[in-house]
């Protein structure tokens, strides 16, 4: 079987460059999240930390296929895609550490962050809710006569069980919107196994029910993810309507860092699903793309340096001050209900 790298290389000359860029974002995501986890364990982060470990290949492949002006609604395991799409390490770190600077200003934290007006949507915790929001943004663009832009909404197999997922996907399908729904089947929604989420033989069978295109890939294989997302995003961009991408992989962390994930079937970790996409990408770089081990070491060191620099900078930023907070949930300040009991 021809490896996906070679297959894709036939159509894209710059594939090696793309692969390397993607790998470096994955590396930065992994290292930044390891740092956040360590800060969490040290009591430096309020709330939770959610790792995208094992899902970096899929996540980065979304961003690698998006352009400026596209829309991305990431979910909790999309650190790689967030960084590669639009977010600075500084803003990501600010959200986790609760800095008063950056877009969230201590009002919301960890993965609930974004810059919506720049096409980088800020997820709410209720799964499926972001899908109709991206669909609506694309509907608005159609009304405004803007063509050629694409929206991507991330979700997991657990989220496919929600009503919002169904409503959003169906709406996008009916309107033939250029929306790509990327489903990471990471086998567990918190502790609930995939067998309790859906009864169809293959999750990808769902696409047919909506009358949309479904594409599947091995979520642990960066080249396969890049190739599949490229196909899906290109089809959507060229007027092919709503697309759904299904990636099989295994969540290589707990639901959050508070979770030891002892419920995960140990056998699964030894199946192909349990392979670490970052390690696989590294092997591919060394074995197939001729990257020198020294080079990888240098990239890793550079990523560590960037993360340390961001964390150190943010640790010097002030925390939000309740006395300076304006406590105003409306943009129309004149309509604030001023009565306080």
């Amino acid at each position: 079987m021809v490896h996906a790298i070679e297959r894709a290389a036939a159509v894209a000359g710059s594939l090696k460059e793309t692969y390397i860029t993607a790998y470096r974002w994955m590396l930065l995501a992994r290292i930044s999240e390891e740092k956040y986890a360590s800060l969490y364990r040290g009591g430096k982060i309020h709330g939770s930390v959610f790792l995208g470990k094992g899902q970096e290949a899929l996540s980065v492949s979304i961003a690698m296929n998006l352009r400026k002006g596209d829309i991305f609604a990431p979910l909790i395991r999309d650190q790689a895609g967030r960084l590669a799409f639009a977010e600075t390490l500084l803003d990501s770190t600010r959200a986790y550490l609760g800095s008063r600077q950056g877009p969230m200003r201590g009002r919301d934290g960890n993965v609930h962050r974004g810059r919506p007006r720049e096409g980088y949507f800020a997820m709410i915790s209720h799964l499926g809710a972001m899908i109709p929001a991206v669909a609506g943004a694309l509907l608005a663009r159609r009304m405004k006569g803007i063509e050629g832009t694409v929206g991507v909404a991330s979700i997991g197999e657990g989220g496919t069980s929600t009503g919002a997922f169904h409503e959003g996907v169906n709406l996008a399908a009916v309107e033939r919107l250029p929306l790509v729904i990327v489903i990471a089947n990471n086998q567990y929604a918190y502790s609930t196994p995939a067998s309790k989420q859906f009864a169809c033989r293959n999750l990808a069978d769902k696409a047919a029910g909506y009358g949309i295109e479904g594409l599947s890939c091995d979520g642990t294989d960066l080249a396969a993810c890049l190739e599949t997302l490229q196909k899906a995003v290109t089809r959507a961009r060229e007027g092919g309507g709503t697309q759904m991408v299904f990636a099989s992989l295994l969540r290589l962390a707990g639901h959050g860092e508070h979770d030891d994930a002892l419920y995960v079937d140990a056998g699964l970790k030894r199946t192909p699903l349990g392979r670490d996409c970052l390690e696989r990408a590294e092997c591919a770089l060394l074995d197939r793309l001729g990257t020198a081990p020294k080079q990888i070491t240098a990239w890793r060191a550079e990523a560590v340096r960037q993360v340390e620099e961001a964390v150190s900078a943010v640790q010097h930023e002030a925390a939000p001050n309740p006395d300076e907070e304006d406590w105003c949930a409306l943009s129309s300040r004149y309509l604030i209900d001023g009565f306080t009991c």
Partner: protein
Amino acid sequence: MSITYLEAIREAQAKALADDPRVFIYGQDVGDFGGAFKATKNLAAEFPGRVLDSPLSEDAIIGAAIGAAIEGMRPIVEMQYADFSTVGFNQIVNHAATLFWRTETPCPITIRLPSGGTKGSGPFHSQNMEALYAHYPGLIVMTPATVEDAYSMLLEAVAIDDPVIFCEHKYLYYHLKAEGLPLEAEPVGKACIARPGRDVTVVAYSAMVHEALEMARELATEGTEVEVVDLRSVKPLDTDTVLASVARTGRLLAVGEAFPWGGVTAEVVARVATAGFGLLDVPPQRLNARDTPVPFHPNLWGTHRPTARAMAIAVRELLRL
């Protein structure tokens, strides 16, 4: 030319569409069909591509409106009945209402809720949702009681940069008529004195204003002067106008068509007790619907909701205290 409450809502939407290219309408059956109540009659033909039929998906309708608002549009969405907005509740209270505070991105969406009871409508086509939405920070909740307010407040709702829950009362759709559309209006957030009086303050909103006015006319024949305050919007709630009225009368009855636990009437009484306890000559009272689902049969429905008659009894008791 006389115009109904429903026609005013249609005219306000036509004007909003005509005045601002960012406005569009989205909802079930709102397109060529013109809406379940015809509130969007002919708008799809007059404004091609801007009055769109949605699937039966309240969550997705609101979610899509939020996404469109992020893109700079100003969507008006119609929930076919206020009751069905519970399916879109999550998008309203967790997404639309939090967006500006979390991300500094304004969310100018108007959510029209055909609200309240009418004969024979039963538990799922009669509800009043204003208290639920007013509970959440980040939302504005309007409850127009007149043809003029239905028109001017809907236009103001579309112009506001925040999510607005527009509770339009179905009972008023055809019953209520005015001579024409208003040229100017009181701003949202200001209550008004629907009828002045010196003996007792009745605070009401939406369809209950008309029951209160009917009661006030009846009690006037007995020599009791009831002052009726129309809240107009329940969030923001114009506490000052209510307090000023209670300062004149010393007696308060707060009336709402919604269920009795908590809600707008409880909020009004709590505010007056907190900020105007000394103004009260007697304990403040509330009158709400009964604590059951809204019944289908008119005989039951007529006693489930507060009526002019029930209000008259409550006011007479209040005067005896």
